């Protein structure tokens, strides 16, 4: 457990470092799905209205697990939430974040894209998903792709 937590923090540290190196890549929103040490800024993505009590309960538990650094538990709890509401884009977004923090860039980008495909015209959520994709691309060694994603995020944030 301790090992996992340390790994999570280390990866997160590495991501922050990458972010600083990249310069232009801003952080995704702060909504509890980070093990701590997140840079300030950005908006908070809240669960949508109409989210069921069961899913809100799971989200609360996932957030608590995430705060304790038990990201694998947070991941499992979010999966349960997604099984209950598979078309809820916010859940996919949270899941993308957890994977990003766990250092699984490819998966995080896939999940953020899935969230986008369900997000409709929610520009805030889409912008934040693009930020995740930017981070993931940066981590995968694709700075040009990261910049493009960041531009999408900025454009969507501007549209808002």
């Amino acid at each position, binding site marked *: 457990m301790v090992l996992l937590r340390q790994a999570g923090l280390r990866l997160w540290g590495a991501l922050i470092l990458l972010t600083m190196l990249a310069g232009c890549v801003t952080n995704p929103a702060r909504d509890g799905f980070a093990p701590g040490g997140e840079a300030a800024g950005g908006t908070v993505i809240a669960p949508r209205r109409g989210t*069921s*009590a*069961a899913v*809100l*309960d*799971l989200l609360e*538990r996932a957030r608590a*697990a995430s705060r304790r650094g038990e990201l*694998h*538990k947070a*991941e*499992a*709890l979010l*999966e*349960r939430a*997604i*099984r*209950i509401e*598979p*078309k809820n884009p916010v859940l996919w977004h949270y*899941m993308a974040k957890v*994977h990003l923090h766990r250092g*699984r860039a*490819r*998966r995080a980008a*896939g*999940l953020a*894209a*899935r969230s986008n*495909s369900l997000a*409709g*015209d929610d520009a805030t959520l889409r912008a934040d998903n693009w930020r995740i994709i930017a981070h993931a691309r940066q981590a995968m060694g694709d700075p040009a792709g990261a910049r493009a994603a960041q531009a999408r995020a900025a454009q969507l944030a501007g549209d808002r």
Partner: protein
Amino acid sequence: MARKVTRKKRRKTGGRQSSPRRKSTARRRHARGDGGRFRRWFRQVPWKKLFAGLAVLLVLYVGYLDYRIRSQFEGKRWALPAHVYARPLELREDFPLPAARFERELELLGYRLAYDTREPGTYNRQHRRFRLHTRGFAFWDDDEPARQVEVRFHDGRVDALIDVETQRALSLLRLDPMYIGGIYPDQHEDRLLIRLDEAPEVLVRGLIAVEDRRFYEHWGVNPSAIARALWANLRAGATVQGGSTLTQQLVKNFFLSNARTLWRKGNEAIMAVLLELHYDKDEILEAYLNEVYLGQQGKRAIHGFGLAARFYFDRPLAQLDNAELATLIALVQGPALYDPRRHPQRLRKRRDLVLNILAEQGVLSRAAAREAMAQNLSVVRRPSRGITPYPAFMDMVRRQLRQSYAKRDLTSEGLRIFTTLDPLVQSDVEDALRKQLRRLDRARGLGGKLEGAALVTSTTGGELLAAVGGREVRFAGFNRALDARRQVGSLVKPVVYLTALMERPGTTLVSPVSDTPIRIQGPNGDIWSPQNYNKVSHGVVPLYVALTRSYNQATVRLGMQVGVDRVVAMLRRLGLPRDVPAYPALLLGSQTLSPLEVTQIYQTFAAEGFRSPVTAIREVLTAEGEPLQRYPLDVAPAVDPLQVRILNSALREVMRHGTGANAVNWFPDAAGFAGKTGTTNDLRDSWFAGFGREHLMVVWLGADDNRSIGLTGASGALAVWSDAMARMGGPPLDPLGGEQLVLRWVEPVSGRRVGASCPEAAQLAFLPGTEPQEAGRCPSREDADWTERAMDWLRGLLD
């Protein structure tokens, strides 16, 4: 040491001197008669040597017995198979689940109907109101306590979920997951191993009370019990009582012979003492629970209480009640003598005797024993054959595990594997496949040769919910769902159309495509000129019509325009895990694929362009419950989601006016789903792949010897699919979403816009700006496609 050597030497020299002495003894023999002769002989025998020799032999023999018993014990002890569980049912308010389905889940889990629900694993029902006492389960991510809850249903949904004790609403309730089998070593050890701490207390204490009361005190043998048994047997003039300890019985079971010779008994006693020297009581008891012989099914011996519970009661050991546990204890004495299927009266008498002993010894209360005695034997008439009721699914689990684990770990480390199997969906698929296969087999006069396979996944993340590998659903033979590679026919067509939509700029679902004879020259000069199924060419038709009615000539024309290699590349993008050759015939599905591979491809359609590997496992835990590996939700963008939504709008049309339209006969809601039929040359294979919002199901029908089965995708596999989907009751697709796409109602002759009220109209999706502008006229049924309808009519006669 030195002294010993000298003594030996002296003895040797004595030996050499013996011949002169013999003379004198011979003389004495005459003088003193026979008694003296014996004494002389007695003195002559080299006793010390003899004893030393015997002692050496004995030590060697005991050493040999020790080696044998230890290797037996070790060999069995460390083989702790992986335990495999189904998905836990997760209840919450508003969860779509009819009350009858919920009750079926409780039955599968072995919950018992009971007036009061004081004990975990019991429930009662009044109409749509259930009260149950859950068993609780230590999930790794969260502990689920055992508790009493009330579950109310309304209109096919969970209406309320209330904790009885606190009278508060529960937001979530996870039932315990169903145990679906173990993963065993290759030598096909047919055993359901249990651990001592998993064994019901009544069983363990009861066994000791009935078979070996001093188990925790003796050294492997119990002389007073042997004496008592001997006395009882002498008085009765036959063997009526055994004096063997559990340890001796275990030794006997290890070597499987029933000869009651004294030599054997002696060996057993020695080995029992040896076992006790090496292992502690609990280890011996655990081995006993797994080793004891409890029945016979033909050539198959039933060893251990885990398997016996399955064999006699078709339930896991942990779910048996007191009467059933007493029955198993009763069987230890003689599984043949007390065979419940042959001598139920005899067994019942012995079970009641056992229950009396349990009450006397304080294992059960008097009242509980009385209650158990009032029960029938409740042994199932036909034992299940295998060690898992879901062989095709378990096969998938095993293969997925082998990618990351050595076989040895799987069969010996006691891993706990949590899978994605949904037992309710699984039984829906089994029932539908069985019923429809029987019907179709009879209708086509196939004499039982018609085979089938089916897979169901969740559209969300590719979780495998159900798998059936053949018409004998419980039989672990050839797993057609995974291993039967068959030509897919028209199932491949959506891939061709998607490639065209994506790679030919300006292509839409109403682009004109020519369904006219086409000739393609192969590299060796062969000419290929594909025909339509009904041998009729339809001229220029809108693209979606060619897809939904599965026109071959139009599809080949389109595929040749985009390039067969592009279609192959698309197959790979969608999730086909291997390369296939790019021949033109591929455009009509000459390629052989397994139902699993087809599922993988259609999964990407159902998930709107996101690819998830079909997976049967959620997580693997160690025997101690620590997470070892998770298989997290994995979605990768594979194809532009908008283009897949456009394609899916045409696949919905298949169910409304296309080749899947017959589904409504079994499944009234079918029009809200999307799918595609597949038929191969000479009607050898009948396929259907279709999905709603939650479930994707792929069905294949055919014969193992590849003979014609006389079924198209629509007349065969579609029936199984619709029947199963109707049972599952999963939701249809969401109404076509408007955002980023434009929806239009179009008519099938020219693809022009018409009103939604036009009976032949199809609602299709377009990228903004590519939608048809020109208004058309709603065609009459005759214009729509008279040739096709005539052929349908003709086909109806042939069906």
